[in-house]
């Protein structure tokens, strides 16, 4: 069938993967309502199937391009989602941690829908300035950074759910399989730190790459550059609040989720406005 063999076959495979992420998200609603006591094997199987389709999509794209597929926004986004689902599938081998899928699937579905938006999957640049190892490294590091931020917001969502159940003395708080909230808080903090380090290195490499161009000053007012600095500053603020002022708990978790939602909602638009990311 042409749908699975044609030029856009990889996108079709990814669209199927997103559909299954959506199914998993719907199934997760039942798991949430039952307080994560239900068997999570179904959800694990759904995410495993989606992972297979997702990986096939990335492999097809990689073979077509003949290099690692992280050279435009669509590819970077699906790479970040792939990182999240891979981590879940490894962690989910332990049955006690399989419930994490209920939190991961809404994030994966949202990222997937975002990735499938039009204009993200631009034709690859013929501009020699914007290609090469450093650009790929810049894109890969930023994808990993957003993957870490995504996982951190998943952990933050778990924190808020469990914290609410504990505050309101719900039975779900004690019967759920979720880790203690103190551990969740630590996971949110560590993933944010990892993401922030990757973001810093990724942006530094991107900056260096721009500096090497013929006319680096021309990109000074680029919306994506300004936006990236803003996101970096916001994450820096959150990291400093956490480590310097011992800010934890609910506000910290809300901060981690809020910033990631902001990134998801603005990434696409800012990217479209950026000449250097649309070459």
């Amino acid at each position, binding site marked *: 069938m042409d749908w699975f063999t044609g030029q856009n076959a990889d996108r079709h495979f990814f669209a199927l993967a997103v559909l299954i992420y959506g199914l998993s998200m719907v199934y997760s609603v039942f798991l949430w309502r039952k307080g994560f006591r239900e068997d999570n094997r179904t959800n694990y199987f759904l995410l495993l199937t989606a992972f297979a389709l997702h990986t096939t999509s990335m492999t097809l794209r990689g073979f077509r391009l003949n290099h690692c597929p992280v050279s435009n926004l669509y590819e970077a986004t699906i790479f970040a989602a792939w990182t999240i689902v891979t981590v879940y599938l490894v962690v989910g081998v332990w049955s006690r941690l399989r419930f994490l899928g209920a939190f991961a699937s809404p994030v994966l579905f949202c990222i997937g829908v975002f990735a499938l938006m039009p204009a993200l999957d631009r034709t690859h640049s013929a501009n020699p300035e914007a290609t090469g190892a450093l650009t790929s490294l810049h894109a890969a590091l930023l994808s990993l950074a957003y993957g870490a931020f995504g996982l951190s917001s998943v952990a933050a969502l778990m924190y808020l759910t469990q914290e609410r159940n504990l505050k309101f003395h719900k039975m779900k708080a004690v019967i759920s399989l979720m*880790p*203690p909230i103190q551990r969740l808080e630590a996971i949110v903090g560590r993933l944010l730190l990892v993401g922030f380090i990757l973001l810093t290195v990724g942006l530094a490499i991107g900056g260096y790459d721009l500096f090497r161009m013929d006319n680096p000053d021309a990109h000074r007012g680029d919306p994506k550059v300004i936006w990236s600095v803003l996101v970096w500053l916001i994450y820096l603020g959150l990291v400093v609040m956490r480590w310097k002022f011992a800010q934890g708990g609910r506000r910290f978790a809300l901060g981690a989720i809020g910033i990631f939602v902001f990134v998801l909602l603005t990434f696409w638009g800012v990217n479209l406005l950026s000449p250097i990311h649309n070459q």
Partner: protein
Amino acid sequence: MPIVVIGLSHHSSPVTVRERFAFEQAHVPAALQLLRDSHVAEEAVILSTCNRVEIYASTSSEFRQACDSLKEFLVRCHDYRDPLTDEIYAFNEPQSVQHLFKVACGLDSMVLGETEVLGQLKAAYDVALKHGHTGSRLNKAFQKAFNVAKQIRTETNIQRGSVSIGSVAVELAEKIFSTLSQRDVLVIGAGDTSEKTARALLSRGARSIIVSNRSYDKALALAAELGGRAILFEDWANEFAKIDIVISSTSAPHHILDRPKLEPLMKLRRNRALLLIDIAVPRDVDPGVNFMENVFLYNIDDLQTIADDYLKQRKEEIARCEQIIRERAEGLFGKPGLSGDPRIRPAFGHE
């Protein structure tokens, strides 16, 4: 040779009767030998715990005759001379095997779903096995009982959750703190429930206990018993920077801890999570503190509700457990009726 069971438990008799039928562990091998020598049973296991005394026997005698002989053995062994009515029960196959499985799974226990009885059953079986009082039928039945207990533990919720105030408090603490081994507990008011709760936390690894009471002597006594430290009642607030869990059970007629008092204390703690267990009536802690970030307040009703919910959940699992037990018991020696007459009813049944 069908398996029969005869005995008495907390369902059928008070402790005053049970204690007179209890076997000392050291005397069990001799009792088993006596039972085998009397030719009442070809194989036998004696289970004697604080809640039950039971003899599981494989016998070639007719059920009613076997029951009479085993009852006589029990009475004679303990020189029991008072009249007996419904205290002693007996089951023939397949009910006897189902009863064994129920006991192994904690379905017949005083605390539904408890696991201690499984260990006691294993120990009783080991003694009989070691002294050569078991054969193919009891070996098969007991091995299967341990196997069914494992299946029920993993496939149902019968053993899930805590049904006492102390263990619910521990469970809550484990849902808040990464590990209890780094946690310090402050007990305000040396009451009975607070002592039990503190003990439960200590048994799960809590690092230290500080006891504060209006009567300093009582605080000293409880602290000594729990291996902790006693402080003056006026000083308990000074400990807040260090502690993570507070168990409060004073007889104060008003709140001893409220939001204006706790807010500066939380700053001292750098906003670390704090679990407040208020088991006092009237309550010691103003419910308003629960709205503070990183503060988790549970009063006696909250804890009791959780314990009751767990018990309800366990009760809801009984039917599922019994279904598994019936199926596994049927599969043990084939369909009921192949090894015993299913028409025979328990001679002194209570269940």
